[in-house]
């Protein structure tokens, strides 16, 4: 099977998958108690006012009908409007989704930079100090709540030491943001040569990235360590040792064989963190997509929630496709 045919076949399935995700999330969202009309008009709304608004929003129709209308609109590129921001959901997400992506991507890069080397070191010497450090790290990272850890970091580095900017968003208010090209402040300011904005955005990223990176290095470390251990005990490693290959080569072979598992855990974490980073986003007033969706849920503002789910689903499907292509590249048995 050629690569192109494989990708094409995968893409054919994307549409029904998305439709299914939309249906389930629509139904779940409808289960959330709270009447949007009441929320929008406030406590002093008249009964006929509420009825008129419900009819306008289509809330008087059956759920299935509502879903049909929603899907038709989505197909035209209209995700509805958020009554909280009074902006189209697509406009809101265009700003917030990249904010979350930037945060999550950098955090995962940090998590990988910590988790993989420490995991390998832990697997290599099974009774040494590094192994014990790796074990404690995994335990600690798994048990610390990320928002609490974020608060500790803010207390130490902002309140006590004052070496990072205030946890109030992605840029200081005094800095003029770069024009939106990709939505990532780092990339946009670098492309436009706006280095003061770049430095400021980078400063704001330090603590949230540290928080999510240090916490999520835990599962990556654990996965790397256990898979590496298994690979180092695998028959091919024993045979490589029997052939007198240097330890370095044996470890490299084992790592290559452990790579698919590591790629898998990273892809799962990536999809999870798009929404899972929300508590950290709130702590740092990040204005990210997760935060946006949670506010939507709390205020019966349903369009942002559905829009967020749809965007996350598309992103996850893209990630899984990329992961499969990576498998293709690294494991000849899948070809």
């Amino acid at each position, binding site marked *: 099977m050629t690569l192109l045919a494989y990708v094409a076949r995968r893409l054919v399935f994307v549409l029904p998958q998305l439709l299914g995700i939309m249906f389930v999330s629509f139904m779940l969202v409808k289960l959330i108690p709270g009447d949007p009309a009441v929320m929008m008009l406030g406590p002093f709304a008249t009964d006929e006012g509420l009825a008129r608004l419900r009819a306008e929003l289509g809330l008087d129709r059956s759920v299935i009908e509502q879903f049909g209308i929603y899907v038709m609109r989505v197909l035209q590129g209209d995700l509805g409007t958020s009554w909280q921001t009074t902006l189209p959901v697509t406009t809101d997400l265009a700003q917030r989704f990249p904010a979350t992506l930037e945060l999550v991507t950098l955090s995962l890069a940090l998590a990988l930079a910590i988790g993989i080397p420490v995991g390998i070191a832990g697997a290599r010497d099974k009774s040494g100090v590094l192994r014990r450090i790796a074990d404690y790290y995994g335990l600690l990272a798994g048990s610390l709540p990320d928002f609490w850890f974020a608060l500790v970091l803010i207390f130490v580095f902002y309140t006590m030491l004052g070496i990072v900017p205030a946890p109030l968003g992605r840029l200081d208010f005094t800095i003029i943001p770069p024009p939106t090209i990709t939505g990532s402040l780092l990339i946009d300011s670098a492309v436009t040569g706006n280095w003061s904005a770049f430095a400021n955005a980078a400063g704001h990223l330090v603590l949230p990235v540290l928080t999510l990176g240090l916490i999520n290095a835990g599962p990556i470390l654990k996965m790397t360590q256990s898979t590496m251990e298994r690979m180092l005990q695998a028959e*091919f490693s024993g045979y490589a040792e*029997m*052939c*007198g*290959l*240097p*330890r370095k*080569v044996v470890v490299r*072979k084992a790592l290559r064989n452990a790579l698919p598992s590591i790629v898998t855990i990273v892809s799962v974490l990536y999809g999870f963190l798009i929404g899972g980073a929300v508590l950290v986003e709130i702590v740092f007033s990040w204005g990210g997509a997760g935060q946006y969706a949670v506010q939507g849920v709390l205020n019966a503002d349903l369009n942002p929630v559905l829009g967020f789910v749809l965007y996350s689903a598309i992103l996850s499907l893209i990630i899984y496709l990329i992961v499969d292509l990576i498998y293709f590249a690294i494991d*000849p048995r899948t070809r």
Partner: protein
Amino acid sequence: MTAPQRLDDRPGDAVQAAPLLDIRGLTVAFPRFGAKSVAALRDIDLTVRKGEVIGLVGESGSGKTMLARSIMQLIPEPGRIDRGRIEFAGQDLRALAPEELRQMRGRDIAMIISNPRGELDPLQTVGQQIGNVLKAHMGMGPRQIRDRVMELLRQVSIPAPERRINAWPHELSGGMAQRVVMAIALACSPKFIISDDATSGLDVTVQAQVLDLMRDLVIARGTSLLFITRDIGVTAHFCDRVAVIYAGQIVETAPRASFFEDPQHPYTLLLLSAFAQDARLRRYWLGNFTAQRTEGVAAAGCAFAARCVRAEARCLAETPVLRETKPGHFARCHFPVER
């Protein structure tokens, strides 16, 4: 290749007197928590001379593989050598540093394994896996490696080597994978090769091809071979000398002719008759081997006593030593079988 087709066709000086591998009193034990440690090998004496092919026969769990791993100095945890000496080419292997041992493995002593498709790295091509060894031990560059790999693939009779060099392990048949492993073993022209049950996973016709190939290559190069197998019949047309291992002990070792014509140890007789297809042959070996079964055997004494039809009181009380019963023929038995 113009290799001699039979062992006996080798020039008279093919097997030299000087020992290449000399094992004396090797005992390997596995300590157990809060219990007596288990001996996997007990008091092994084995000498392999230059150019000699030795068959090592034994049932599952008798210590065949443990002996191979002891020679490679790769005893699985928590096993360790309690006593004994392993000398290879005049060097005491137990005294070598880990890095020296690593360099020795694959270069001076190579191993042919039994489950090549499970033991080859699934993510490296045939060429890369052979190349690894050449790079690690011979310091060859990419061009040299490629030439040498092609040469090796041809030597182990792999058809279309220019295609196979880029094949992945999962694309190989069992016989092909076995040839690749053989090419890896031969890559650095080692002095000594251990074949650990190498052909057991193959079907009979492929097994015969691989055995013929192994014999040709070994004889042509004058490499010493320790041929570990469960199939005593294979050793008959393969080995200069045969050793039988039982419960971690060598119970009999003899030159091939003497071994098959005049087996001394009761266990050897049982092994031989188990493999004999011909009823007359079985009668020949079991001829005067029909004594009473002894019951109620204790753990002390001869390890085989519990299963031996000839066991007597002495066998239960006193551990026999490996002694020369005929010139060059050793058996670990108080009452070697007489013909």
